[in-house]
């Protein structure tokens, strides 16, 4: 559901936005930042974004305004949305919004039915830096020391270790998913069990978070896909299986993978706070460490501004909650006591992952046992877990079994890797009996039989087949032996003509040797496959929402409205992927447009059916394109059924007539 950029954005710089907001608005901001009223937009923008200026204005804000601003800065930038009333038009902005806009900290954009107040993307970074500086100062001056004698536990590359372990688990056997790609509840503990044990006791436990992060990492790295069983009469089972060559990527330790780990972690609301705060703290001095309570004191106001539900949790639990992904990404260390309970955090220099070759990770005995000599690196973990089986309680011993080696051979086949070579890399020396046995086990793994369907032309001899292949060109999709050419079933007309042109006589009719199978639309809908398709890199962008719509000035002539009128956007709205760039529909939350396919539309409408909320639908009517505010109730018979939000009448629209849907 990414937004579709189709032209230059309006107000892509803060100066442009100020310009577009009108003279009244611009003059008010200029005065608020200490410039002359007629200052140029560029001058005003520079003053707004200067670190000293931002710090001054943050210091001057009321707590409610500061919280609102922090919410926007740490999420997607949108701090409030005013909807047009049926008769009353747009309400006036609240005093909080006006005070933020006056400081140049907010821009407002308007579509035909709403006004959105948001932080300009260009202002996002300096604003966050200022917020984190303030939080870091609180944390560092909290004067809370951690207990003595702590053990510092780092998790260098823990996310990659988790990815390796989960990938090995999926390689051993796929995990079935629901039609929409979601995991079945019963599959979750199985996958959690596959994750390596941690040396700390996170509160709350991080298993669900680790599973989510890891699956996203595998998905977006292209290391997992959803496989559908679409044979006629089959169960339509859909399952997650491995794909790509994670081992090679882990071994090369490439920066893209590290970047992906960060990007995935940063998608969690609130993580960015800990992440950036950690960066700020790290810059404050080497070996920066503090009691968990001190860190909590610094980050809590920011965290609560993002998610008010966190108020119900103890402060240190909140700190652990948002630090967990940071720790899992190897960017901080936890200080734990003998029971593994966390009471401090360190942001300073952490032990880097071992870069030199530290020798074989395991000893392989002729009893087929692998004994680990040191902690494995992520690539080694993947190979170890693919090739061998572990036992509960045996952290240092694994065993090669026929089942594990066979599964590894199947899994490695796609990347051309060889289990015996992988084992030699892990252990250095492979006992003769183990090597021979592995060769036999691997040799017994044959490629699976494949059910294929083809239309092919059967030629009388090899020479004619060669001539036909040359003549048919791209209509031939595969040569099946010396006398058969598999051809594009949609190109029979072309094929007939080309064969005739080549003087090759084609017998009338089609010889259906397997009988006739009617090709129908796939009964397996594409939702699961889409859910597990890698996200485009653009989705990793955690920046603020670009401006979308017409920029309006809200300062000057308006009368401040009472506070309650302006509604803070709900969490659900904020979590929507707010598309960027103007669309034909002129809305910020495009759910579907005519460039998507019908399956997308089906999916989108089913999703919104459960929400009892109106969506704007533009559809092709007899007298041209029309827009309707529709509360969808169900999708059936090729139509979406629902209620017209204005008239309260039941409505049904053919799916094929729908051009766009927006939230």
């Amino acid at each position: 559901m990414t937004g579709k950029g189709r032209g230059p954005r309006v107000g892509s710089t803060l100066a442009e936005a100020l310009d577009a907001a009108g003279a009244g608005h611009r003059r008010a901001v200029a005065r608020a930042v200490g410039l002359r009223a007629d200052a140029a937009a560029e001058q005003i923008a520079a003053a707004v974004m200067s670190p000293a200026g931002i710090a001054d204005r943050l210091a001057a804000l009321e707590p409610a305004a500061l919280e609102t601003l922090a919410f926007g800065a740490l999420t997607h930038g949108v701090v409030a949305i005013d909807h047009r009333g049926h008769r009353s038009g747009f309400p006036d902005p609240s005093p909080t919004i006006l005070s933020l806009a006056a400081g140049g900290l907010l821009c407002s954009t308007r579509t035909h039915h709403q006004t959105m107040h948001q932080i300009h993307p260009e202002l996002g970074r300096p604003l966050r830096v200022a917020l984190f500086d303030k939080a870091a100062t609180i944390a560092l001056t909290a004067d809370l020391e951690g207990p003595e004698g702590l053990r510092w536990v780092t998790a260098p590359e823990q996310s990659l270790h988790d990815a390796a372990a989960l990938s090995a688990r999926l390689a051993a056997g796929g995990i079935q998913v629901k039609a929409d790609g979601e995991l079945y509840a019963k599959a979750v503990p199985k996958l959690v069990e596959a994750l390596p044990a941690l040396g700390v006791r996170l509160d709350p436990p991080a298993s669900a978070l680790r599973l989510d992060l890891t699956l996203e990492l595998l998905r977006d790295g292209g290391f997992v896909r959803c496989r559908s069983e679409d044979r006629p009469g089959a169960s339509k089972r859909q399952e997650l299986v491995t794909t790509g060559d994670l081992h090679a990527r882990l071994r090369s330790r490439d920066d893209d993978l590290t970047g992906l780990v960060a990007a995935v972690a940063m998608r969690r609301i609130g993580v960015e706070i800990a992440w950036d705060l950690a960066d700020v703290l790290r810059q404050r001095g080497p070996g920066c460490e503090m009691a968990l309570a001190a860190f909590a004191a610094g980050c809590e106001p920011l965290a609560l501004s993002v998610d008010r539900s966190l108020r119900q949790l103890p402060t240190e639990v909140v700190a652990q909650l948002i630090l967990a992904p940071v720790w899992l990404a190897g960017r901080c260390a936890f200080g734990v006591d003998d029971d593994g309970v966390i009471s401090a955090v360190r942001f300073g220099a952490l032990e880097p992952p071992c870069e030199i070759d530290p020798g074989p990770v395991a000893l392989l005995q002729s009893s087929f046992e692998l004994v680990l000599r040191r902690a494995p690196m992520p690539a080694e973990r993947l190979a170890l877990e693919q090739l061998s089986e572990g036992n509960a309680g045996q952290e240092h011993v694994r065993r090669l079994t026929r089942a594990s080696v066979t599964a590894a051979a199947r899994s490695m086949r796609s990347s051309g890797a060889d289990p015996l070579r992988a084992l030699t890399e892990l252990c250095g020396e492979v006992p003769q009996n183990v090597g021979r046995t592995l060769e036999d086990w691997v040799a017994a793994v044959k490629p699976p039989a494949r059910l294929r369907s083809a239309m092919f032309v059967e030629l009388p001899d090899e020479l004619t087949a060669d001539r036909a292949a040359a003549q048919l060109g791209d209509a031939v999709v595969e040569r099946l032996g010396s006398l058969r050419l598999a051809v594009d079933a949609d190109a029979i007309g072309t094929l007939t003509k080309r064969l005739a042109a080549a003087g090759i006589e084609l017998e009338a009719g089609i010889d259906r040797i397997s009988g006739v199978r009617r090709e129908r639309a796939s009964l397996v809908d594409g939702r699961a496959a889409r859910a597990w398709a890698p996200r485009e890199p653009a989705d990793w962008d955690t920046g603020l929402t670009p401006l979308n719509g017409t920029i309006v000035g809200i300062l000057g002539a308006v009368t401040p409205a009472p506070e309650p009128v302006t509604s803070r956007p709900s969490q659900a709205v904020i979590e929507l992927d707010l598309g960027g760039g103007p669309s034909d529909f002129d809305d910020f939350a495009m759910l579907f447009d005519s460039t998507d396919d019908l399956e997308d539309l089906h999916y989108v409408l089913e999703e919104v059916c459960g929400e009892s909320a109106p969506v704007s639908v533009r559809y092709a009517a007899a007298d041209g394109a029309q827009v309707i505010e529709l509360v969808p109730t169900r999708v059936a018979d090729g139509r979406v059924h629902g209620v017209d939000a204005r008239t309260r009448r039941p409505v049904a629209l053919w799916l094929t007539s729908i051009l766009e849907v927006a939230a």
Partner: protein
Amino acid sequence: MSGPAIVQSDRTVLLEVAHERFAEARETVGRFAELEKSPEHIHTYRISDVSLWNAAASGMDAAQIVDALTDLSRYDVPSSVLADVRDLCARYGRLRLCDGEGGLLHLATDEPALLAEVLRAPAVAALIRGRPAAGWATLDPTARGPLKQELIALGWPVEDVASYEAGAALEISLREDLEVRGYQRDATAAFNESGAGVIVLPCGSGKTVVGLSVIADAAMETLIVTSNAASVAQWRSELLRKTTIAPEAIGEYTAQRKQLRPVTITTYQMLTHRARRDGPFPHLDVFDRRDWGLVIYDEVHLLPAPVFRATARIQARRRLGLTATLIREDRQEPMVFTLVGPKRYDTAWRELEEAGYIATAECTEVRIPLPAATRHAYAAAEDRERMALASANPAKGAVVRTILDRHPGAHALVIGTAVGHLRAVARDLGAPLITGKTGRPERERLYDAFRAGELAVLCVSKVANFALDLPSANLAIQLSGSFGSRQEEAQRLGRLLRPKAGDNRAWFYSLVSHETVEQDYAHRRQLFLAEQGYRYTILAPDELESLPRFRLAEAA
């Protein structure tokens, strides 16, 4: 890297053989953990409840064990392991089994609440006579074994300080010219300290001598239960050769003879024989028909269920179990430890080999493709028929000849489970064959001829799997086996391990049909030996030709 040990949370302790502190670590860890595996690089010990209680019984306390683990461990010792050590050691000695009045026993403790707790268990309460007093309860001597079993199951080991029955006296001592090896003396001493337990020593290392030493030290009437008639004869012969016992004091309780004498030798089959499948066991009362002071269970891993029950009744008698392979495919090893007694002595096979007490054995698996015709039959066969087809691979006969050809002068056993195929190979080789149908006199004649060097090749079915002493055998060719039996594989290798003259070497070949279920079973069969440090070399038949020729005539 520092310590030689890695402690895992399942309470296994891995010791790195190449580490400079290995010997020290082995000595220390062996006091509170049982050796489980000893392959080439890493030995595995297991800290079990029983091993901790044995350590506690020998005077070691939890703090010493914790210190030892912490000192030897390379990484942090899992806190759960340390907690278990402290908890389990603290349980030992809080319940005591001691002599009461009138031949009865007392279960005693200083903690009345603990007594009340264990007596809440119905199985324990059922064994108690009368009303328990504060701090002690009374039981019959026959309940001694079952009570110990039940209390161990509850996690409360009982310190058994009640006396054993003296048993009738026996005039016996070891002959003065008998040389008892150091490990045999250690094993005897370890047993004598407690009076009940199991000694685990490799095949061919002289377990019988340990048994004789124990009999001589106890000087009490003894019942010896062993695996088969040939073994009965061997025990008799060893008693006569190595001790001063009078021949008329030795009796055999077998199908042929029903003699009950001061030292009586019988078999598990005899004790568990019954006329009808659901009838009583008429010979089990042998345990009670004399005043035995000692019962020896040879090949204790074979202990059948009815003998378990009989053994539970005789807990007041000294009990010695002897075995090389305390593995049971039915996973009943803990029952052996509970009823006969815990493992008292164990040693790694390779250590005795290095010291020259047993022969150095080279193990080879030869993977032989099925001939084309058999291959097709195998491919089309049902699962249950496949093992039979693979076992009887006709191409194995030629490989047997090749192996014999590579070992001129060898004294070879050709061992198989598929008797039809074994018979064909024996016929082809012109070698005699012993199966279950071969009469006892004929068997003894052939074994004697083989021992005397008059027969170079002897084909045997699985009747020769256990307790058969053929010191001259230095080459074994295993044609087929009982599926994945690790014990059978080890016992068959064991036939070769008696020390040899010359360079003390022996060769064990296992012939396996390539790419068949037999290969999978062979993998499992070899597991026990691999865990003892034996490395199999895997060869194809044509690679045998490149092996050097081992001339064994002089050695044999």
